C-alpha cells in the first residue's frame, strides 16, 4: 500500500460490512458490556497496526474476528480470572440435559416467542465462554467450522462439540419458558 491513507481506506473497505456483526458479537461476549467501545478500539487498532501482514484476498472476516475475540478473552479474564479461563473447559455431560424439554420446544416453538430476545439473551449468559464464542461466531459472524477453529485455536472437533452443546443448551434453556405456555412433548415419529 502506497500510503497510510491508502492503507486506512483499504482497511475500512474490508471492515465496513462487518461492523455490526463485530459490535454485536462483542456486546454478547463481554462480561461487562459497557466496555464494548474500548475493546473494539483496542482490537481494531491492533489489527490496523498489523494490516501490512494481512494478505490481500485472504479471509479478512476470520482475521479481524480473531483480533476482537482475543481482546474479549483478555478483558473477560481481567474481570473474572477464574471463571473466564474456560476456552478449554470441561464439557458438561449432555446426558443430564433434558432431551424431552428441548424436543418439546421444537414441537411448539411459538410458545416461547413472546419476549424471545430476552430469553435468548438470558440463555446465552448461561453458556460457558467457549460455547458462547462458537455459537456467536457461527450465528453472528457466519463463520465456518474451519474459520472458528482458526480464531479460537482449538481443534475442529472441539468447535463442533462446543457448538452442538451450545445449541442444545440454548434450546433446553428456552424450553424452560415453554411449559407455562402449554407446550407438550412431541409424539415419537422416528423411523428405524
Amino acid at each position, binding site marked *: 500500500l502506497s500510503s497510510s491513507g491508502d492503507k486506512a481506506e483499504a482497511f475500512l473497505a474490508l471492515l465496513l*460490512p462487518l461492523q455490526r456483526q463485530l459490535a454485536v458479537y462483542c456486546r454478547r461476549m463481554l462480561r461487562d458490556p459497557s466496555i464494548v467501545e474500548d475493546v*473494539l478500539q483496542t482490537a481494531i487498532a491492533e489489527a490496523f497496526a498489523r494490516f501490512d501482514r494481512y494478505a490481500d484476498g485472504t479471509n479478512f472476516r476470520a482475521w479481524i474476528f480473531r483480533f476482537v475475540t482475543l481482546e474479549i478473552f483478555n478483558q473477560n479474564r481481567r474481570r473474572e480470572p477464574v471463571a473466564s479461563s474456560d476456552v478449554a473447559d470441561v464439557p458438561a455431560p449432555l446426558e443430564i440435559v433434558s432431551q424431552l424439554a428441548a424436543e418439546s420446544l421444537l414441537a411448539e416453538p411459538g410458545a416461547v416467542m413472546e419476549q424471545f430476545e430476552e430469553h435468548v439473551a438470558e440463555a446465552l449468559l448461561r453458556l460457558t465462554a467457549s460455547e458462547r464464542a462458537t455459537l456467536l461466531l457461527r450465528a453472528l459472524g457466519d463463520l465456518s467450522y474451519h474459520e472458528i477453529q482458526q480464531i479460537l485455536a482449538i481443534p475442529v472437533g472441539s468447535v463442533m462439540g462446543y457448538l452442538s452443546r451450545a445449541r442444545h443448551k440454548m434450546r433446553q434453556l428456552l424450553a424452560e419458558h415453554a411449559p407455562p405456555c402449554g407446550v407438550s412433548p412431541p409424539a415419537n415419529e422416528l423411523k428405524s
Partner: protein
Amino acid sequence: MICVEARQHWELYLDSEGSPELHLRVRRHLGSCPACASWFSRQQWLEREINQALGAGDPTSDIWERVLARSGIRGRGIRRRPLLIGAACAAAAIAVVVLVIAFQGQGEAHAELTRDAADWHTQWQAGRFRPELMSRSHQEIEDFLKTRCALPWRCPPAQAGGFQGLGAGVRLIGGREAPYIVGLLGDAAVSIVVLDKADTAERHDGAAYRQGDYRVVVGVVGDKLVVITGMNSVASLQRLLDQVRKLAIAPDDFPRI
C-alpha cells in the same frame, strides 16, 4: 440412512459442513421421510429465530464512528481529504458529463435510482438494518426468493464469480416490493436489488455508474431491472451481472411457482 442417523447430522447439514456425500444422503432421506423433513424444517426455523435474536440490538454506527476516530483510522482518511478534493471535483464533473451524455435527457430517473442504490447500500454496511434472511447458504437464499418474493432465481454460485451470499430481503420502493440479495464479492460487500423494469430501462442495459465510493451496474434481466452496487471494479460487478442473467432463467430442476 435412518431417521436417527439423519437427525444426528442435522447441524452439519444446516451449517453446510461435512462431506457432499453426507449432504446427499441426508437430502435423500428428507425427500422420503416427511417426519424428518418437518423436524429439520423446525430446527432450521428455530435456529434462524435464535440467530436473529442474538443479532438484535441498537444500531452500532455511532459506536463505530467513535472507535474509528479514536483509533485514528478515520483520521488518516480525513487528512487526505484536502488532497482529494480537486480530484473528487474533477471526477464528479466528468461523471456529470458522462451521465448527461449517457442519459440523453432521460437520465434523471436512473441518477436517482443509482443514488438510492448507493445510499441504501451504505445503510446496510453501517448496520442500520438487517436483511430479513441472514444466511450464507445459497440454497436458503434461493428458497427465500422463491417463497417470499415468487422470484425463482438462483443465487450466483460462489465458485463461478467468487460471490458469497450473506442474506436476502425485500425493499419497498415506490410502494412496490423489490427483492434483494446481499453478499460479498471477494471481500467487498455487494448488493443486488431486483426491480420491475422501467420503460426506459433497455436504453441503459449494462450501464455502469459511480456514486461516491461505489460503482453501480444496471442491467435488464427478463422483465426485471437488476441494480448491483459495491466497491468492486466495474468489470467484476458486470461479471456478477452476467452470472445473474444466466441464473435468472430457471433451469428445469428449479420449479417455477
